């Protein structure tokens, strides 16, 4: 069991070493196996060493160590439901009248269940929520044995059947209505907007709990049907560091955004450390002599001047055209995160025109606000709204070229797909002559570079390096080579 579990974690991308697997076995042998939470803690402490991987571990653990006792409750109806929905007439043992009666009973059940769910959400009692989740999965999920669809499909069906969103809105209205009876109140919250907010957050938390319970219930039923290994395989998602920026879904982007802050912080920390420890200054003769007095005139410990290098300036020039839309959004997140750590970051965005967005970032209170404002306020379309690197770089040199100094690091973000416009590589060469370093981050896979209208090869000679940057892992590697 443990071996299978470890193998599944590895397949999901977690770097579980042999030592760690041995430690896990060791840890498991020291705890009572009857307590599932203790087992989970023991395995988590030995097998997962990064907070970003905890989520994957939790999911896999739930699949492999699902509660067997309660699963019988699901298995019965789980087998009955498809008979009712899939083939109601051909079923010999169940006459048509019986089937429609069952359906009617189902409808009544659905109303009653909805009321029960409302009650559970109102009270927030854990046992009641669990009971509702179990009943809802039985009634609405309609799990069909052998059908290879994922947990999310059944989760969606169950929550739709339960009408969770509608339910929440109703409860919220009832709770915030003036003079609401005591039964409708979720919390003993103070009046006013703050109280409402507390109620809404509490309801959302309870709904999230119900959702998690339903998810666990569905997973349990599926494990019963197909076995742990198959379910775990269907649940595999790329780890956040392997998500491709170009094809990131909305949910992936949210995960990326969360993961980006620590990375931006470590980027900042690394740059700061490099700044301080990079060079040791020349020998500080006076200080050395002064120091040597305490050791009887023997200069035991040489002292050095500390070097105070100027703060590095960073200029980020990012392509925000449609062809790299997902990447551009991510890019803006990254630029925003870097800008919040450094004072001397200037950001520019371009499509076929180019505009500075530093002040937009500075004035925005959050990433999402900044991204929205860049989209509406920045003047980046010159002619037709298709990327034109040549024109964008040319304009950039013309208007801001003077601000680039020997202390400036320039980072260009883009796929260099130029829609067959002129490359105008001279503009980049002019930037490179003035700047300290020029780096180019390309979100396209390396094999595609130079195909079609990609002209990365024309620009590459004028940069200090073109880096493939399709996921966080590659971005981290770039941060490593940066100095």
């Amino acid at each position, binding site marked *: 069991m443990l071996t299978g579990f470890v193998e599944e974690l590895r397949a999901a991308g977690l*770097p579980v*070493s042999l030592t*760690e697997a041995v*430690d896990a076995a*060791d*840890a498991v042998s*020291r*705890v009572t196996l009857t307590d599932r*939470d*203790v087992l*989970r*803690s*023991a395995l*988590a*402490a*030995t097998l997962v*060493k*990064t*907070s970003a991987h*905890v989520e994957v571990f939790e999911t896999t653990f739930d699949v492999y160590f699902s509660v067997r006792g309660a699963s019988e409750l699901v298995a019965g109806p789980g087998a009955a439901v498809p008979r009712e929905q899939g083939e109601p007439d051909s079923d010999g043992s169940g006459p048509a009248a019986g089937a429609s009666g069952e359906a009617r009973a189902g409808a009544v059940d659905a109303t009653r269940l909805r009321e029960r769910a409302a009650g559970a959400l109102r009270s927030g009692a854990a046992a009641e929520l669990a009971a509702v989740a179990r009943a809802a999965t039985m009634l609405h999920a309609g799990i069909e044995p052998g059908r290879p669809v994922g947990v999310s499909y059944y989760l969606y069906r169950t929550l739709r059947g339960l009408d969770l*969103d509608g339910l*929440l*809105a109703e409860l*919220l*209205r009832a709770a*915030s209505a003036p003079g609401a009876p005591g039964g409708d109140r979720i*919390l*003993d*919250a*103070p*009046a*006013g*907007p*703050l109280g*409402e*907010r*507390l109620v*809404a*957050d*509490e309801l959302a*938390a309870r*709904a*999230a709990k119900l*959702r998690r319970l339903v998810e666990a219930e569905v997973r349990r039923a599926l494990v019963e049907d197909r076995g742990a290994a198959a379910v775990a395989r269907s649940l595999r998602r790329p780890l956040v560091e392997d998500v491709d920026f170009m094809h990131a879904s909305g949910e992936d982007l949210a995960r990326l955004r969360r993961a980006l802050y*620590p990375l931006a912080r*470590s980027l900042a*920390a690394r740059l700061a*450390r490099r700044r*301080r*420890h990079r060079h040791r200054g020349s020998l500080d003769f006076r200080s050395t002599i002064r120091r040597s007095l*305490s*050791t*009887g005139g*023997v200069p*035991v410990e040489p002292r050095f001047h500390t070097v105070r290098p100027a703060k590095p300036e960073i200029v980020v020039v990012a392509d925000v055209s449609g062809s790299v839309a997902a990447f551009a959004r991510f890019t803006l997140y990254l630029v925003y995160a870097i800008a*919040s750590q450094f004072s001397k970051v200037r950001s520019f965005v371009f499509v076929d025109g180019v505009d500075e967005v530093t002040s937009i970032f500075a004035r925005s*209170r*959050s*990433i*999402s606000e900044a991204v929205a404002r860049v989209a509406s306020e920045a003047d980046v379309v010159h002619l037709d709204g298709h990327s034109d690197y040549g024109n964008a770089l040319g304009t950039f040199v013309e208007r801001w070229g003077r601000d680039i100094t020997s202390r400036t690091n320039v980072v260009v973000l883009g796929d260099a797909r130029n829609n067959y416009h002129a490359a105008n590589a001279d503009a980049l060469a002019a930037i490179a002559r003035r700047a300290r370093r020029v780096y180019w981050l390309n979100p396209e896979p390396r094999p595609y570079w130079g195909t079609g209208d990609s002209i990365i090869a024309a620009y590459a000679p004028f940069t200090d390096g073109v880096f493939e940057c399709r996921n966080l892992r590659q971005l981290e590697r770039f941060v490593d080579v940066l100095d």
Partner: protein
Amino acid sequence: MTAVATPSGAARLGSPAEVVEGLAAVGYLADEHIGTVVYLAERLGKPILVEGPAGTGKTELAKSVAALLSARLVRLQCYEGLDEAKALYEWNYRKQLLRIQVERAEESGGEGARGWRELEQDIFSEEFLLERPLLEAIRATDPVVLLIDEVDRIELETEALLLEVLSDYQVSIPELGTVRARQIPMVVLTSNDTRELSEALKRRCLYLYLGYPSVERERAIVLAKVPGIEHRLADEVVRVVRSLREMELEKHPSVSETLDWARSLVLLGIERVDTSVTESTLHLLLKYRADIEKVSAELATRAPGTSGAGTSSPR
């Protein structure tokens, strides 16, 4: 594991539940997960790596574990540029120099020359050794808990210093030989997650992530740590803090800030938290001006009825 005796003087931990109870008795409210990890660390003789945002009680956990085991806490505060001399041991070169000079004086007094070898033996002995926290923890005869605080602040290369101590509980001193631990000390490392620690270090540790506590646990913490607070006020305090943590802020309020806020409210004689109270005391919870502005704006503009489930939907 080498044949090192387990701590004989320290109280043994019976089970995860006992750990939770014991920690509660010394004033640290742990959940079952924390209890299990501490229990396993003691049983397996492995260090615990505690990671999580600032102000969630990582250092406090180490102190409480020390109190629970009635052990002495040896603390190594990490910082950029921490080196061997500050972490492991250092030769007291001033004393050594004095020794040599005294030797020279005696020589000229006609005592007869002593060989360099003899002198070397002399000046590289324990007498001239300055113990730093890691060596101190290894050589301790009484039970100790070694706290290596904010290990993410040291450079990747310096991490290697810790590896020998953490896996074999020994320190090699070229002039003296290897110093082995007489007992396995409990080791707690904390990290604020500002950078990824090396695989080698992580492999040797049990991992414990301390995030923000649940509403129930945080309420219990507030009730335990803030004298004279009403149950209802404590409940409202932690709920407001949870709402703030849901927002997109530069820095979310930590548990210690929740406690500060709760204490101030009690001192001010406030019984219920409402919008105006929150706004006027927001600076206790949030440490960035941009955050304070943002939250005040959000609290003020929230018109009745518009707060739907959609705006704060799960996930």
